[in-house]
Structure formats: C-alpha cells, structure tokens
C-alpha cells in the first residue's frame, strides 16, 4: 500500500512540474519535456499500478510490443511529413 501512495505522490509532483514547465519559454524543448514527463508518468503507472514489475515476462513482451509498433508508426510517418523540405528536390524533377 505504501508504494502506491509513493507513486501517487510522484505522479502529482510530475503533474505540477509539467504544468509549470509549460509556462517557461524553452522553444522546441517544451514539447519534448511535456512528452518526456508524460512517458515517465505512464511508466510509473504501468510498472506499479498495473503490476508490470511483478508479472510474467510474457506480459512484458506484449506490453512492449504495443509501444514498439506505435514507435514504428510514428517513425515512418515522421520520416515523411516532418522531413519534407529538408533536402532540395533532385534536379531531374525540376527539369520535367
């Protein structure tokens, strides 16, 4: 029971940090920090409240698989949308 209370205090603390950090102008670091803190909170909830720490390794693999597939989806999409305009168009394209 005590570990649950400790995790809960940490979660509320992280909530306070993420809200205050949002008001500090950090440029591109703002969203990185926000998502980083959210991921930390999610990991805390999954590890302690959802008992991932103490369940079988098979469950670990299934839980991680969800995140891995999500990462593939984000990476491939980011490679398209977020990288547009980073490189000049090949000159062959411009001639046509």
């Amino acid at each position, binding site marked *: 029971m005590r570990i*649950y209370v400790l995790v809960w205090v940490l979660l*509320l603390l992280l*909530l306070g940090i993420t809200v205050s950090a949002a*008001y500090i102008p950090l440029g591109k670091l703002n969203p990185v920090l926000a*998502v980083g803190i959210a991921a930390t909170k999610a990991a805390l*909830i999954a590890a302690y409240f959802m008992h991932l720490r103490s369940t*079988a390794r098979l469950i670990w693999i*299934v*839980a991680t698989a969800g995140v891995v597939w999500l990462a593939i989806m*984000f990476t491939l999409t980011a490679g398209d949308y977020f990288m547009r305009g980073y490189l000049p168009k090949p000159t062959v394209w411009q001639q046509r």
Partner: protein
Amino acid sequence: MEARAHQFEDAEQQQDAATLGMWVFLTTEVLFFGALLLGYSVYRRAFPSTFGEASRHLDIVLGTVNTAVLLCSSLTMAFGVYQAQQGNNRALVRYLLLTMFLGSLFLGIKFYEYYEKYSEGLLPGSAFVWHGSDTAHASIFFLFYFILTGMHALHMIVGVCLLLVLAIRGRLGRFSASYYTPLEMGGLYWHFVDIVWVFLFPLLYLVDRSS
C-alpha cells in the same frame, strides 16, 4: 458463479490467460489512441501558431484539476485491487465506490468544459466562431480536441460501468483472496485510461503556454 472455468487447469492459469488477453486488448487501444495522436501531431507541426493559440482557449485550471482527480482515482483503484487480493470484500467495495465517484467527478468537470467550449462557439462545424486569423486550422485543433477527449470520456464511462458491476459482485461476495481476476482486469483497464489522459493533457492543454 464458478470461480474457475472448466478449460483451465487451475486458478493461476486462468488468471495468467486473462492477464495476457487484457494486455493484448490494451495494445490495440494503444494503437487506436496512438493513431489519433499521430494525426494530431502532424497537424500541430504544420500549423504551430494556430494550434498554440487554440490550445490557450482550453481551461488550464480545470484541465490540471481533472488530471489530479484521475491520478487520485488510479490510487483508489490500486487500493481496491490490493484489498481484493487480501480477500477483503467490504474494503474493496468501498474503494471501488470511491474510484467511481472520482471517475464521475472527472466526467462532470469534462462535460462542464465541453459546455463552456460549446457556449463560446468552439464546436467545429457551421456554427464555429473564431476571432483569430486562421479559422480553418483552429477548427481542426478543436476537432482533434473533441474527438480525443470524447473517445477518452467514452472509455471513462465504460470504466465507471465496469466498476459498478465489479462493486455489485464484490458486495455479493463473489471474490476471494484466491479469485479476484475480474478486479485485476478492471484495474488494468482503469489505469490504462488514466495513462491515455496523462498524454492527452500536456499535448492538448500545454501546446504553447509560454508565449
């Protein structure tokens, strides 16, 4: 109801199977919300200033309070599952009712926020009112806002109903220290919905607060 279904060797195997199935389901949920968030990220990167401006229209105080309420409900849910493991049905029902109360409080605050946004004309559609320069893309932000938080609220409603069923079964003494699998599964679902909100809150409310 028989605690153990006939196809399982023992209660432990049954719980392992249920846990595995639940996590497979949660994985599909990760990808469901993940795809929505990915779409949101693409548009947010394409129209950063409009999304920042639109995000500042969301109520930061209500959002923060709601996040805290949900985190508290996860704590009471964890306590409930713990009491179930101890075979303590009365304490279990108490914690489930408390969790349901906090979940309903979250939904109440959320619907009040919806009402506010609706009154301000921020519901996307023909009646959408925007005083900034980029009406079309502000409308896209609020479309994502309503779909993401709406899908999350739907999951919360399902969660509260699940907890009600579990509380009734707990009250009838259907669980014991050797059989509490439904509680464990209900807990996994509740905490997962909490995790979804943990991502939605900073991504929607804290886009560009510093400027």
